[in-house]
Structures are given as structure tokens and as C-alpha cells.
């Protein structure tokens, strides 16, 4: 099943072409390590898939839906973790309530995923999210993303602030996902995701320069 279809995507910022005719197809079961130097266009591509950017040319479909015109339908099946945990000012309880109401994911499910990541949410439930430590924030974002059972995971450097043990928990949770999904991991260290991915995509200067199955 086709999850994402990007066709000749072009995006320019103030005259600079950041995506230069990118075409990409992602099917269910694809686990992609997306690599490339800074400024290669990786983040712009995933932000376009998430509907944050209007393309200058080309098109993107996520499960047959347009991320701009049908953002709710698209985002209902996508879990996203940004490169750095944002300094969200909501408390942990408020953030979980937001997740529950907007996605239908029960708070209990997120709590259970958090426990599997060795994160005790009960102790921190009244703390604003931004006051958690870097590792705890990342664990909570992972717990939320995986609890949603989305058909497309987009993780930007998901293990950057995790210690080795937390990374193990994260890999175990990914393996235990009991449904079919596609995943795009943006990373600079492909070796960290070895065993988790089955496809390497390398971008440079706004283009996909390599796309190999591993």
C-alpha cells in the first residue's frame, strides 16, 4: 500500500531552491533512513509531507490525501517527532489531554508506552513539558508518537538525546509495534538505525541522490 507519493516537489525560500524536483514513493513496510548534509532539504521535505509548506511546484499525497487541503485526514495517520523537543509550556497532563482529544489516543496508552521507555509520568504530571530534562522530553515524544499507532512515522533524529539504555527501549518499542507502518527517520548516523531500516535515501542540494534498499 502506498503511504506517501511525492512527485517533482519544488520548494524555494527567498529565491533559493531547497527542494529541486524531488520524487519519492513510500510504501507500507518501508523503513527509511534519510541522510544528507545540512541544508540538503531533508527537513523541508518532511515538513512538506506534514503540510507545513506550500510547494512551488509538484505534488504530495499521503494515503491519497493532500497535506494542505486535507491536513486533518493526513495528520490523523502520521506521528512526528521533531529534531529538538520544542519548549512546549503545557504541563505533561495538559499535553496528554491535548493528544487524547485531538487523536483519540487514550492517556493510559501513552503512559504505558512511557513506562516501557522507563519514564515515570506520574512523578512529572504537573511539570511543564519544557522543564523536563532533554532525555525525558524525547522519551515522552516517542511514547506519544508510538502510542498513536500511526501508519506513517516521521522521526527527525529520534535518538539524539537518548542514552544507550533509552535507545534500546526505543528500538524494542519500534519492533513491538503490532501494526503495519512506514517510517522515515532523518539521521546523520545510519549505523544507529541499522537493523531498523530497510532503505537508505541520501539527499543533497535539494535532490535525492541515492535511494537503495538494504
Amino acid at each position, binding site marked *: 500500500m502506498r503511504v506517501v507519493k511525492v512527485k517533482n516537489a519544488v520548494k524555494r525560500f527567498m529565491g533559493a531552491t531547497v527542494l529541486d524536483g524531488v520524487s519519492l514513493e513510500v510504501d507500507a513496510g518501508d523503513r527509511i533512513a534519510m541522510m544528507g548534509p545540512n541544508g540538503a532539504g531533508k527537513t523541508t521535505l518532511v*515538513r512538506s509531507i*506534514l*503540510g*507545513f*509548506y*506550500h510547494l512551488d511546484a509538484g505534488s504530495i499525497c499521503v494515503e491519497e490525501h493532500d497535506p494542505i487541503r486535507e*491536513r*486533518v*485526514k*493526513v*495528520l*490523523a495517520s*502520521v506521528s*512526528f517527532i*521533531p529534531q*529538538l523537543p*520544542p*519548549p*512546549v*509550556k*503545557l*504541563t505533561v497532563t*495538559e499535553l496528554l*489531554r*491535548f*493528544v487524547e*482529544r*485531538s*487523536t483519540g489516543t487514550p492517556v493510559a496508552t501513552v503512559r504505558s508506552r512511557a513506562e516501557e521507555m522507563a519514564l515515570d509520568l506520574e512523578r512529572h504530571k504537573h511539570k*511543564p513539558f519544557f522543564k523536563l530534562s532533554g532525555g525525558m522530553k524525547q522519551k515522552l*515524544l516517542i511514547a506519544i508518537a508510538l502510542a498513536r499507532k500511526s501508519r506513517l512515522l516521521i522521526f527527525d533524529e529520534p535518538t539524539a538525546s537518548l542514552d544507550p539504555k533509552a535507545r534500546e527501549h526505543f528500538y524494542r518499542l519500534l519492533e513491538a509495534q503490532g501494526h503495519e507502518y512506514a517510517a522515515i527517520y532523518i539521521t546523520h548516523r545510519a549505523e544507529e538505525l541499522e537493523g531498523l531500516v530497510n532503505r537508505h535515501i541520501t539527499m543533497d542540494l535539494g535532490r535525492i541522490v541515492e535511494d537503495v534498499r538494504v
Partner: protein
Amino acid sequence: MKNLFLVAYLDIRESLRSKWFYVYAFVFGGLMGLFFISGITDSVVMGFTGLSRLLLVFMQVTIIILPIFILVTTVKSISGDRESNILEYMLSFPISLKEYYWGKFLGRFVTVFFPVVVALFIGVLWGLVKGGELPWAMVGLYSALIFSLCLVFLGIAFFISTLVKSHDVGLGLSFTVWIVLLAFLDVALIGLMMQNRLPDGLIISIAMLNPLEAFRIGAIALFDPELTVIGPVAYYLLDTLGHDFLMLYAVLYPVLLGGLFALFGYYLFKRKDLL
């Protein structure tokens, strides 16, 4: 709709924990306290005394402080959310842009409107305790005027936030809007009038397009239906518009203007890149 109220509720909760909200509430609450301590209700200036006097001073202070507080805190919070990638994360959940934008607008409106109205009602209660009469109609209309003033500047602030992406540019633009509107309250227009370069009717019309001026005239008309405080312009305004229409204009025009700015802001929010 459920997500709209969820976003509004979370924005209110977030604001209630923010420092800006405490400063804002303290400024209006503190001012009211200062009025009591300084015995403003007992003084007689320009023929006003008691609660009318207190409300008049409160109105003059509101004109200066309210707009800049609303503009700066709103622009800072929304542009700040964009720059710190909070917007990126929150909008990666399946909520429509309509629910997010209007939910934020509603939440922010509640947090800027209520401290001012609560301060106003504390003042009125204090006046009653001191033995004054409760001017119900005046308090009701004054609350409506504050509602309009909050709405128009919130609309402008949301428009600025979606128009510019940089936090610093947004703040600069907010200050410019505030200064221009304050300057056009009197200084600039009096200058034009004195130079006789433009017809008086046109100058007065320009003045009345300024939402701050609409608020000011409406508030003065509550205490002084003949508008004697503002001099000869009062004849022109009252002869052209009449007292009732003037009051209606003072309440409805800022609501309409704020609504239009908020709508333009929403249009830009939908049409432009979100980050």
C-alpha cells in the same frame, strides 16, 4: 469545534502560568488600587466626581496600556511559538488550522479581557462600598467598550503574527501600530487641522477611523453626553452622527475592524507556509 475549545482552554491555562499575565493583571489591579489610595473617587476634576471620575481615569489609562499589552504579548507568544518550533509540534496533530487559529484567538481574548473587566468591577464595588450610586448603564456600556478595544487589538496582533515570521519584526510592527494610533489621537491631527491643509470633516473622519479614538469618544460620551470635554468637534460629531449612533459606532466599529484583521490573519495563516 471540540478542538477549538480545547486549544482555547489550553491557551488560557498556559497564559495563567505566564509572567506576562501576572504583570498585566497586576498593572490593572494595581492601578485600581492606586486610584482608591489616591482618593480619586473623592476628587472633582472637570466636573466629574465619584464613580464617574474613577471610570474616566480608568478609561484614560486603558487607552494607553491595553493596546500595547495586547499587541506585544500576543505577537511575542505566537511568533515565539513559531521560532521555538512549538507550532511545528502542536500542528503535527490532526487539528484543523481553523480550530487552532480561532481557538488561540478565543483563549487569548479571555485572558486579556477579564483582568481589565474584573479591575473595573472591583472599582465599582469599592465605589458602592464608599456610598456611591451604581451607574449600571455606564458600567455595562464601558464593559462593552473594553470588549471592543480588546477585540480590535487582538485582531491586529493576530494579523501581525501571521504577516511576519520574525519575532523582532513583529514586535517592531506592534510598537509602530501603537505609536501611530496614539499619535493620531490628537497630535498629528491637530497639526493637520491647524495648517488648514485638509477639510475639517475629513480630519475628523480620519480620527474616527482610529479605534482608539472611537473608544475614547464612546467612553467620554458615557459621562458627558454633550462631549464638552473635547471642544467644538463635539458639535460636528453630535450633529452628524447623533449620540446614540455615536455610542453604537464606538462599540461596533472596533469589533468589526478587529474581526476583519483577525479574518485577514486567518487567511494568511492558511495561505502561507506555517513555519
